[in-house]
């Protein structure tokens, strides 16, 4: 901690939040909110006179609310930087602190939050984790029984710098507990709360048990566990040490804690799997080893940074094996538990790994980004002909389109992230996206639907989420109908209505329109554009009396392989429910209606030329069927 403050190249900004992140790799502009401390950093010498003078006492969150702090405070005596804060929510404006500060004049009640912008080349996200609050688990009585405490409360109680100066006492009567139980997996590996394992709590329980035992050798400690997980170097040996030192390990998840209301003694009912029977034991104090959960503002940070979350709410990495440190956004990296629960050595290692990933960029003079940007055909843009439009500029999540009535819209390449929202929205097909041109995507659609199109489920997926979800379905071997034919564009915003109409015109049995969940969008609001269009299409197809299930809209993250497989299988079932003749008749009935919407398709540059070549490919594919 002190090293970081001493390093001249590190600017430590505490009591500061990230408000906005704009830009792209190498060129981010981050807006920070420096919250008012009401103490001037350039004047405060950390003497603490203000705290002594302050008459207000409120619970100190840093001490897990086991001790008070003043309204003029630092959370702990080793705070870095050592600059005091005035908690304006608690302050009664008596100004005793100002008096105590005297000639230093460090306290300044006129301070306000300050927004500052910084230009940044690469970002490491290390926002950490939070702890599960066991109050909802009424069976354990946390909050009702004073001697049931959480692991973090134990940390402070047992800490020489803590509220009791390290004296272990039980909250109900201040006596030293002789029988202590630790319950593992509180809120983790529990389908009611968090199904996943919190990674470090087994070791954490053992550490606390050993520390207690060392400091209070006459204390008896029992750890209730489901499994003990000690996979890393030296962990199993540590577990052995705990067993040899007399700590009792009971395999079984306690079903209930009851309390004697007079003595506040606690009774844990649990199965002991090794004994094969239900047991009840009495304790003076119980520590609940809480689950690690994402930060309460993880959703907010996720949308500020435009990065997705895995199920469970942790930030999702680009690739779970090959790029575990990278976010899906180039130039943003993860360190520590924000990406998933991690113990200290793993967090430190990931900090170094993230620094190393970031320094690849920061040590380069320039960085390369994908050229899959949008491009306007100026002669097709109606604005150039004097018509008011600007739809493209409104759809763009990045303000990357210059729209002036009377001039052709222009894409500012450096700002364009290549989502294709403008391309999908332009009603005059005046914009295309490099590497995902209409000619290219239509060619894919036509070949995928060349043979028996009515049996096919054409799946449009975005690159970042749904395509990843389909990949995960495969890597997990979640089987789904082989009639699915997948197609990839960068974002659901690129899924132009024309592409969907053309697929139905060609006789597609069913179409899946899929992308990310709104909060996960790689392109800020690309999904919103895609979702609005999908809703319009749903209405249009409903009016056309298309059979239900033939057009389906689903938001599937890269972590939802099971969902991808389920959706495709459900679509197959809907398709199977339509009698073959009825389906064919419906396709024929709707074909002219779809064609009516596509009269200008061949005017899009490249589309008519491409269709000549695609005809040859399709002929060959159909020929293959004939021979077979």
């Amino acid at each position, binding site marked *: 901690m002190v090293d970081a403050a001493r390093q001249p190249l590190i600017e430590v900004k505490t009591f500061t939040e990230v408000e906005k992140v704009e830009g792209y790799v190498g060129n981010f502009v981050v807006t920070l909110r420096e919250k008012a401390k009401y103490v001037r950093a350039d004047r405060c010498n950390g003497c603490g006179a203000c705290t002594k003078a302050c008459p207000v006492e409120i619970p100190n969150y840093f001490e897990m609310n086991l001790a008070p702090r003043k309204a003029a405070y630092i959370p702990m005596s080793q705070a870095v930087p050592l600059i005091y804060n005035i908690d304006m929510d608690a302050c009664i404006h008596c100004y005793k602190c100002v008096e105590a500060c005297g000639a230093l004049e460090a306290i300044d009640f006129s301070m306000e939050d300050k927004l500052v912008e910084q230009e940044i080349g690469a970002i490491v996200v290390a926002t950490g984790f939070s702890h599960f609050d066991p109050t909802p688990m009424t069976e354990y009585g946390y909050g009702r029984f004073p001697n049931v405490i959480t692991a973090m409360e134990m940390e402070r109680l047992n800490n020489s710098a803590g509220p009791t100066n390290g004296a272990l006492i039980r909250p109900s009567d201040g006596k030293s507990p002789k029988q202590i139980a630790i319950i593992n997996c509180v809120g983790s590996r529990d389908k009611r709360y968090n199904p996943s394992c919190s990674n470090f709590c087994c070791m954490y329980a053992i550490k606390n048990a050993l520390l207690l035992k060392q400091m209070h050798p006459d204390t008896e400690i029992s750890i209730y566990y489901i499994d003990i997980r000690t996979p890393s170097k030296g962990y199993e040996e540590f577990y052995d040490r705990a067993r040899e030192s007399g700590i009792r390990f009971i395999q079984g998840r306690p079903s209930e804690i009851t309390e004697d209301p007079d003595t506040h003694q606690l009774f844990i009912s649990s199965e002991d799997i090794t004994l094969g029977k239900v047991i009840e034991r009495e304790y003076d104090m119980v520590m609940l080893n809480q689950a690690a959960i994402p930060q309460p503002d993880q959703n907010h940070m996720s949308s500020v940074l435009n990065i997705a979350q895995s199920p469970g709410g942790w930030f999702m990495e680009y690739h779970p094996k090959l790029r575990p440190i990278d976010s899906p956004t180039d130039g943003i990296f993860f360190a520590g538990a924000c990406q998933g629960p991690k113990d200290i050595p793993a967090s430190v290692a990931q900090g170094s790994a993230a620094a190393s990933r970031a320094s690849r960029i*920061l040590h380069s003079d320039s960085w390369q980004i994908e050229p899959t940007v949008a491009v306007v055909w100026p002669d097709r843009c109606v604005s150039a002909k004097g018509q008011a439009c600007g739809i493209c500029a409104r759809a763009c999540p990045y303000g990357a389109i210059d729209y002036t009535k009377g001039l052709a819209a222009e894409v500012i390449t450096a700002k364009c992230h290549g989502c294709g929202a403008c391309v999908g929205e332009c009603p005059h097909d005046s914009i295309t996206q490099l590497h995902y041109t209409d000619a290219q995507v239509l060619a894919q659609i036509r070949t995928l639907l060349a043979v028996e199109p009515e049996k096919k489920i054409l799946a449009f997926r975005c690159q970042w989420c749904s395509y990843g979800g389909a990949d995960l379905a495969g890597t997990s071997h979640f089987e789904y109908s082989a009639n699915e034919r997948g197609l990839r564009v960068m974002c659901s915003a690129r899924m132009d209505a024309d592409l969907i109409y053309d697929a139905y015109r060609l006789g597609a049995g069913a179409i899946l329109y899929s992308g990310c969940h709104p909060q996960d969008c790689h392109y800020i609001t690309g999904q919103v554009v895609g979702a609005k269009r999908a809703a319009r299409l749903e209405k249009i197809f409903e009016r056309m009396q298309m059979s239900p299930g033939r057009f389906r809209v689903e938001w599937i993250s890269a972590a939802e392989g099971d969902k991808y497989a389920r959706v495709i299988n459900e679509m197959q079932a809907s398709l199977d429910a339509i009698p073959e003749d009825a389906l064919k008749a419906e396709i024929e009935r709707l074909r002219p209606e779809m064609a009516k919407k596509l009269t200008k398709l061949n005017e899009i540059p490249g589309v008519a030329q491409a269709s000549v070549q695609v005809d*040859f490919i399709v002929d060959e594919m159909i020929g293959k069927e004939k021979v077979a």
Partner: protein
Amino acid sequence: MSEDPITKSHAADFPQDEPRIGVYVCHCGSNIAGVIPPEEVVDFAGKLPGVVRSIDTMYACADSGQRLIKEDIAKYGLNRVVVSACSVRMHEPTFRGCVAEAGLNPFLMEMANIREQCTWAHGHDRAGALEKAKDLTAAAVAKASFLTPLNMIKVPVTKRAMVIGGGVAGINAALDLAEQNIPVTLVEKEPTIGGVMAQLNKTFPTMDCSI
């Protein structure tokens, strides 16, 4: 701002050259070949218009597979390459690099995902998987026919990092960056850095103080 190497009208244009496509169907050991016979996809793709070379390979991503592609680009005068193998999330950079080494623009390579999104998902339906692998390969061939060469966009880099969160991971990342002479802004929402670690008593395995 950035340099803009995209000659816009050119890049969006319809390609003028006659496609000469090479198709490489990967066995991926038994990951693909255990479900479908890659040779059948090879025979099918070989007949598609524009395809001048179609062949299977045990591991397209391995040195031998990449060498085959590079040699073929010269030998058959290929101007487009289709790799029917795994996910683009896995190996698109690999094959883009491979064709670039042989002098082909990296954006003239297209992949068909016949592993994650085919053989691994349809192990129960081998006939269906084979038909799907053919269609996905044909779609990649069709798209490849109309690919145009593109250049990566070069952008400048601001030499400053931001670390969001001053816990043990963030502090360590900031120190590592600073020690490499990179200026760092370390942002922490609480009034002190330290995170959860600072609240802990002694920690495993050294059992010393956490601060």
